[in-house]
Structures are given as structure tokens and as C-alpha cells.
């Protein structure tokens, strides 16, 4: 068996690209982001976790948010593609290989951020296998992700090379993609201590925004690279996004009301702090939900230009939803009676601003993701014969 029978790579690999204003700007942004990432990584190796602005009261920071963003895009892309295979959705067919690969690459980009969040990644691999804790959501993430990646790869190879039970692999890819994202949401949902996230909201929100993330990414690729053959699929997925965006909007409203109802201590402060912030009103809700919903509902049903702009802001909104989540769960200190040493009075609201190192790794990972996608485009044969 030859390598080409397993991986559909191109015969003539070239890393050149057509120089249009869009591609030149995108290349410049990507190089800038990668340099920013490398700066962050260099700072991490120089100063370790001290280069982060996380504290005892706010131990999770921007890298957790960044990682959860990439996971969402990965899951959305792969579920969309695998559903196309399993349910024979012909309209999605031109996109399937590309979505599967980009989904995997998004996951890898997430790992490039997560790698620097966990203090001892090698120990994590060893002891998650040797003494994994079944009551920990993080442990189950370690179980589901490898299966998610394995079945995505098998689906891709099987679909591209037309060998093996493609539909069965696609079904397992859907199952493990959903399991992974539900577990990622559960990391926050199962924190009984943190009233901001405790419950079922984030499991569902993660799943909904994940599928949206996949649709948004695909729309951006279609418009920026003028892939007219994808437009029919994007128009179809655009209609799906109406339902998801509407559901999210309703969930946000109900959550706000239940969050402030009764002024439950620890909950109402966090909900009010986040829901009244610019990060939430402008970015998460305004740009991430309402603007795309407005464009989808009132824009052209056949053209996707405006939806492309909405998709960009939608992805920004998803990123901010993760930032707001990470901030929201830690914004209320758990021991308000505990004074810091030297009689410093505790605040009712903890403060956290990401350091330049955290921003470098977390935001720069987007550049790494774009680089991965560019290499995949050049190396792999991702277009279907229609």
C-alpha cells in the first residue's frame, strides 16, 4: 500500500499563492500573528507561568478561553462534514474534505494554546492514562479527544480514498465530536462552586456556538477564496444558523433573568458584572448574535457577501463568549472574609487582564491555525470531483 492510498496529497506541491489585495493582507496578518505567538512562547519559556496575569483567586485566564474557541470551531466543522456524509447531504459534498481537515487543524491550533496553559503537559499524558479520575470532566476530555481525532482522520481517509465503512466512521466522528464539546462545556457546568456557570447552560451553548463556528469559518473561506462552488452549501447552512442564533438569543435572555432573579449572592454579582460589560453587550451579544441574526433574517437569501462580514464578527463573538465565561466564573472571590496579607481589603470583584504573553499565545494561535490551513490547502487534495 502506498502513502497516496492513505493520504490524498497533491502530486505537485507549491506554496505560492495568487497575489490579490485580500491574500496579501491576509498573509501580512498571519505573519504578524505568528510572530506574536512566537513572542508569547519565548516569554513563556523565559518566565514560565509567571508571565501570565493569573492569580490565586483567578487561576484560569485567556488561554483557556482561546482553547475553548478553537475546540468550538473544530467541532462545528467536523460535525457539519460528517453529517454531510452520514445523512447524504449532497449540498455539503463539495466542502466535506476541507471541513474535516480544517476541523482537525483547529483542534491542533487549540492544543498550541492549551500546551502552555497546563503546567506539566507530559505528566498530564502519563497520569491521565495511568491514574485517570472518572469523576473529572477534564479526564473525559482526554478520553474523547483522541477518539474524536481518530474517527475524523478515518472518516477523511475513508471518504477521500473511497475505502472502508465511511458512514460508520462519520457516525462515530459525530458522536465523539459532540461528546467532546459537551464535556468541554461540562468542565464549567459541573463547577458547583461557581454559580455563574453551574448547570446545563454552557453544555448547550458550547454545542450551539460550535456549529455556528463551523458555518462561520466555512463562509469566510468561501468568500475570501472565491469558491463559487461552495455558495449553495453556505446558503443552506446559513438557514440552519437562523435557528441556532435564535436559540442562543433566547437562552441569553432567560439566563439573565434567572441570574438576577432573587439576587442570589455570588450569582447575581457575576451575571450583572458580565452582562453589563462592553465585552458582553458589544462583542458577545451585539456582534456575535444579534448582527449575524439580523443579516441572516433580513439579508439576501441567495448572496453571502453580508453573511461573510457577519461570520467574521460571529467568530469574534464566540471568542468573547469564551472570554466572558472564564471571567464570569472567577469574578466573584470565594472567600470575601479572607484578607490578603498586610491587611489589604478584598474586593467583591476580582480583577484580571491578560498579560502580553497570554495574548501572544492565545491570539497568535489564530495565525498558527491559518498557517496550518494554508499548508493543508497546498499539500492535500481537498477538492472533490463533482
Amino acid at each position, binding site marked *: 500500500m502506498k502513502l497516496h492510498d492513505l493520504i490524498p496529497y497533491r502530486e505537485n506541491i507549491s506554496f505560492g499563492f495568487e497575489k490579490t489585495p485580500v491574500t496579501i493582507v491576509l498573509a501580512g496578518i498571519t505573519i504578524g500573528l505568528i510572530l506574536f505567538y512566537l513572542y508569547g512562547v519565548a516569554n513563556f519559556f523565559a518566565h514560565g507561568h509567571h508571565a501570565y496575569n493569573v492569580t490565586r483567586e483567578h487561576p484560569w485566564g485567556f488561554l483557556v478561553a482561546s482553547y475553548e474557541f478553537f475546540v468550538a470551531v473544530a467541532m462545528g466543522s467536523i460535525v457539519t462534514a460528517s453529517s454531510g456524509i452520514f445523512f447524504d447531504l449532497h449540498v455539503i459534498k463539495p466542502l466535506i474534505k476541507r471541513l474535516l481537515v480544517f476541523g482537525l487543524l483547529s483542534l491542533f491550533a487549540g492544543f498550541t494554546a492549551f500546551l502552555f496553559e497546563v503546567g506539566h503537559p507530559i505528566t498530564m499524558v502519563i497520569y491521565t492514562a495511568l491514574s485517570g479520575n472518572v469523576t473529572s470532566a477534564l479526564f473525559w476530555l482526554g478520553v474523547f479527544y483522541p477518539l474524536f481525532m481518530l474517527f475524523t482522520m478515518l472518516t477523511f481517509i475513508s471518504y477521500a480514498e473511497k475505502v472502508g465503512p465511511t458512514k460508520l466512521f462519520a457516525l462515530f466522528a459525530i458522536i465523539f465530536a459532540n461528546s467532546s464539546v459537551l464535556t468541554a462545556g461540562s468542565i464549567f457546568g459541573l463547577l458547583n*462552586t461557581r454559580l455563574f456557570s453551574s448547570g446545563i447552560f454552557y453544555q448547550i451553548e458550547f454545542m450551539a456556538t460550535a456549529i455556528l463556528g463551523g458555518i462561520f469559518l466555512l463562509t469566510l473561506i468561501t468568500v475570501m477564496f472565491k469558491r463559487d462552488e461552495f455558495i449553495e452549501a453556505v446558503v443552506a447552512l446559513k438557514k440552519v444558523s437562523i435557528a441556532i442564533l435564535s436559540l442562543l438569543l433566547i437562552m441569553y435572555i432567560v439566563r439573565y433573568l434567572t441570574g438576577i432573579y432573587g439576587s442570589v449572592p455570588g450569582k447575581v454579582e457575576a451575571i450583572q458584572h458580565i452582562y453589563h460589560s462592553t465585552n458582553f453587550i458589544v462583542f458577545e451579544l451585539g456582534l456575535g448574535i444579534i448582527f449575524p441574526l439580523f443579516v441572516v433574517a433580513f439579508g439576501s437569501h441567495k448572496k453571502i457577501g453580508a453573511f461573510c462580514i457577519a461570520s467574521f464578527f460571529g467568530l469574534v463573538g464566540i471568542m468573547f463568549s469564551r472570554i466572558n465565561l472564564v471571567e464570569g466564573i472567577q469574578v466573584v472571590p470565594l472567600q470575601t472574609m479572607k484578607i490578603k496579607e498586610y491587611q489589604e481589603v478584598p474586593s467583591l470583584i476580582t480583577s484580571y487582564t491578560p498579560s502580553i504573553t497570554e495574548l501572544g499565545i492565545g491570539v497568535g494561535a489564530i495565525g498558527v491555525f491559518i498557517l496550518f490551513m494554508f499548508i493543508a490547502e497546498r499539500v492535500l487534495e481537498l477538492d472533490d470531483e463533482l
Partner: protein
Amino acid sequence: MARYGMALDYKNCINCKACEVACKEENGILLGADKHRIWVGVNDIRGQWPNLDIASSFFQPSQCQHCEDAPCEEVCPTQATFTNEHGVVLVDADKCILCTYCMTACPYDARYIDDRTMTVDKCTFCSDTRLVRGEITTACQNTCPTKVRTFGDLDDPDSEISVLLRNREHFSLKENLGTKPKLFYLT
């Protein structure tokens, strides 16, 4: 097998912080505002002059509650956090991956990062300095001038702590979370 716990007669606390110093000294805790296994909470006087509620001012020493259903242990992906045979919640530094999930899950903010090992650290009830030698005391308890703390075996009906808990009303922090703390505040 002994099951250790601590009773705190917190109204006797004078906020001298001898317990904090003893803990740092005995367990080699790093200096710095964030690095502490135990602390003394301060509840300021409520009200405005002249209507001050004098009784509302008190000190509340605290630390890891060594919960029977410890949230930190439940979320730890590698079982680095575990409860030993004496009911003491400990961290195995070799297994800790510094995901800080336990810090996020602990309702009492009882954990911090030890910068030397870059792992999460917490109160051990002086397991490796005293209990291991058969000495049923802790540094904080031993040094307290007003005898706020009583440490002992909760399963021994004749231990000082068992007698205290039988005869005095007490409460635990954040009982509503179902963590079943083994720190008891005497009223």
C-alpha cells in the same frame, strides 16, 4: 483508623497571626500575599457611628476544610488530589499537571501554586511533619495562644474534639454545597 478534623473556637481568635507564621515556618511556605495555606478572615464592624453592631466584628481563622466529598478531588484529572486513610486531603506533586482545575473548584479558595515545584499546594494538617511521627497536633494549633484550634480523631469518642463537638453547637462553611467539611466552627 483515625479520621482527623479540627474544631475552631473562632470567637477566641485575636488575629495575632501566630498560626499563619507557624504554618509558614513549619511547612516552608514561600513568602508572598498569595502563598498561604491558612489565613485569618476579618469581619469588620457593621453599621455607622453611633449605631455600630459590635458583635458583628470577629475573626475567622480558616484553611482547607478537608472535605469528605472534596470538589477539588472530584475534578482532578490525574488523581493527584486524593484523600488518605486518615481523611486528610493531600496533593501528590508528582501527578499534579498544574491545570488548576482544583483551584477553580475549591469553594474555600484553599489552594495556591507553589512556585518551587510548580504544583498546587494546600494544607496537609501537618501530615508530613507531625502526623507521620505519630504526633496528633498541627503547627497552627500548637502555637495558638488562645487555644482556638482543637485537632484530633473524629472517630474516637473520647478525643477532645469529639467531646467538644458533642457538647458545643457548631457549624461548617458553605454546608449547602454538600462538601462535608471537617473543620467545625464552635458557637
